[in-house]
């Protein structure tokens, strides 16, 4: 390894910097394959269990087994306010975790307030993870979740035509991929796509990926592990579909309005900005927020920071315009 001069990079937000110091003692910047078993156990200290998260948010959840890619069984959870009886808008949720870890309850708390406010329902997909189930398993499982949600709208209290897709990190990439699949297959219509710090580009060619190596949360090395697990030898070659890596899509017309956010201090910054630009270039609609000095997933990992409160507010404003 030749020593490379450290690239200049945006400084971390003053409040987030000491929080990142604490987080870094539990979560190394660079995840490696040998850490996967422990990471999948979800044994990070201070992490509440799914039951605790749901109870605190006054939500109930029920599991349904459905047919995923090639007919394999996967589970989706239907999550709604305790005691809900009405109809309302829906969110199809694709969880984060770099394509290689995490489960369908990760990141759910961020949607709780909307489920209560709009009497809505959220369907979260337990898609199968790479590397055991490489591309196209994850995105096709998520698409199967979309089709199931649309087909069972009446039964789960979903208002027709009021379904949006949302995900963070790898889940943001999967949400973008599912939106492209739905467009190209004339699948269920989507009202919007919420791509939160999404993982979109397998090619490892941006400035931001080189800026964040060995530092922060989900650095370049972790990202290469995630994409390598998903795509194997195909990573970075022409043999990758736009559904696996939406950054490769050149035609982004005909998609639902997008909400895209990320931090200025993370690997995904440049690909997320580029995706918003490509949507506009295709005549589509996107709202883009690049939060200054934010590391990857800071709003979830450091929810008390002033910047995290602003992230929640901005997403809420978009949802209010979308769902009224």
């Amino acid at each position, binding site marked *: 390894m030749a020593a490379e001069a450290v690239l200049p990079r945006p400084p971390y937000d003053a409040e987030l*910097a000491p*929080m990142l110091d604490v*987080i870094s003692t539990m*979560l190394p910047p660079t995840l490696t394959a040998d850490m996967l078993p422990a990471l999948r156990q979800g044994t990070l*200290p201070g*992490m509440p269990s799914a039951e605790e998260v749901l109870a605190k948010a006054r939500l109930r959840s029920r599991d349904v087994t459905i047919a995923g890619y090639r007919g394999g069984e996967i589970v989706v959870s239907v999550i709604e306010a305790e005691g809900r009886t009405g109809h309302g808008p829906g969110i199809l949720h694709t969880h984060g975790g770099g394509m290689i870890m995490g489960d369908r309850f990760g990141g759910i708390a961020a949607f709780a307030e909307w489920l209560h406010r709009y009497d809505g329902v959220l369907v979260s997909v337990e898609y199968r993870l790479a590397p055991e189930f490489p591309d196209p398993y994850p995105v096709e499982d998520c698409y199967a979740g979309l089709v199931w949600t649309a087909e069972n709208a009446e039964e789960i209290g979903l208002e027709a035509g009021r379904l949006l897709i949302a995900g963070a990190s790898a889940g943001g990439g999967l949400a973008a991929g599912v939106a492209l699949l739905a467009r190209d297959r004339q699948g269920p219509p989507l009202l919007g796509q919420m791509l939160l710090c999404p993982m979109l580009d397998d090619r490892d060619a941006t400035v931001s990926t080189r800026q964040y190596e060995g530092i922060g949360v989900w650095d370049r090395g972790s990202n290469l592990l995630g994409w390598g697990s998903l795509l194997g030898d195909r990573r970075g070659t022409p043999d990758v579909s736009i559904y696996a890596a939406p950054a490769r899509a050149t035609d982004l017309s005909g998609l639902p309005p997008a909400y895209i956010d990320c931090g200025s201090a993370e690997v995904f910054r440049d690909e997320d900005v580029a995706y918003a630009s490509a949507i506009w270039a295709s005549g589509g609609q996107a709202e883009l927020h690049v939060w200054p000095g934010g590391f990857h997933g800071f709003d979830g*990992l450091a*929810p008390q920071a002033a910047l995290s409160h602003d992230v929640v507010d901005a997403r809420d404003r978009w949802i209010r315009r979308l769902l009224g």
Partner: protein
Amino acid sequence: MQELAGRLTELDPAAGESVRVIDYFDSLVAGGAGIESIVRAAAILSATSATALVRGRLIGIDADGARMTPAAPIDTTPTDAPIVWLHRDGGPGPNDAMIIDRAQIALSIILARTDPAMSAVERLVDAGTSRVDREAAAQRLRLTGPIRLVAAPPHSSHPVAASTVLATREGAVWIGVGDVIPAEGPVGTSVAHDIDDLPRACDDARLALRLATEDHRVVDAAELGVLILLARTFDPSATPHPDVDALEGLDERTRAVLDVVVESESIRAAAVKLSLHHSSLQARHEGWTRQLGYDPLSPRGRVRFLAARLMQRLA
């Protein structure tokens, strides 16, 4: 990956984690955080709501970091210094006293930065300041001739003409301009020949501070002589030299003994200083040579040891 920040509230003072509270506030100050961020940090670290009174303004933040209507404290004695309260039912938490103390110090630093004299010191030592601005700042502080700079930990209050707190890569550092070297360490100091030399002197004073130890609490960059050139080359991201690795492989006690031995005329003189029998020191000489890869008592070996020790202290 959510809510990891829950860990922030579980710092265990018994496990030496109280230092993390200090680091937390130092990082905020070094990063240029504002007043509200300090109050928010107090609320997060104590997992309860916090109120601060800063220059007559009340600021309230709850445990989730959200702004709240400040709870008017019961005992407001009129004071210029910022005050922080934690609103906790039941008795105080294990870190509360320290969190309040550190939050108040951090607020004092942030307020002091708005003081014209303080910002003049910042302009003086900043390499990016133009000649004209540097002269103006020197005139404001009535500085002429050689100028001594003193570097110390961020919460120092040495008697100096003017001081500031700089945000540096190593965290917050207190920088004073004066002509007296403080007797109480830890302190690093260096003299600027003229005002153009101030940024260099500031950097050297900071390096000297990092070399301060329990035994040498006050370090003057001038006393380091040519070794300051070595200190300036230190690169935290570079792979340590094998001589530094060899030092790391020794235990602290052995390193302390070697410090005395290398600085002494002879093993016998070192034994007197260490209150040891010289034969027991003599017996260890061969072991040191083997562990270090060179003889620390040869002229060249002494130089290698001192240089490696310097690099190790900067790391």
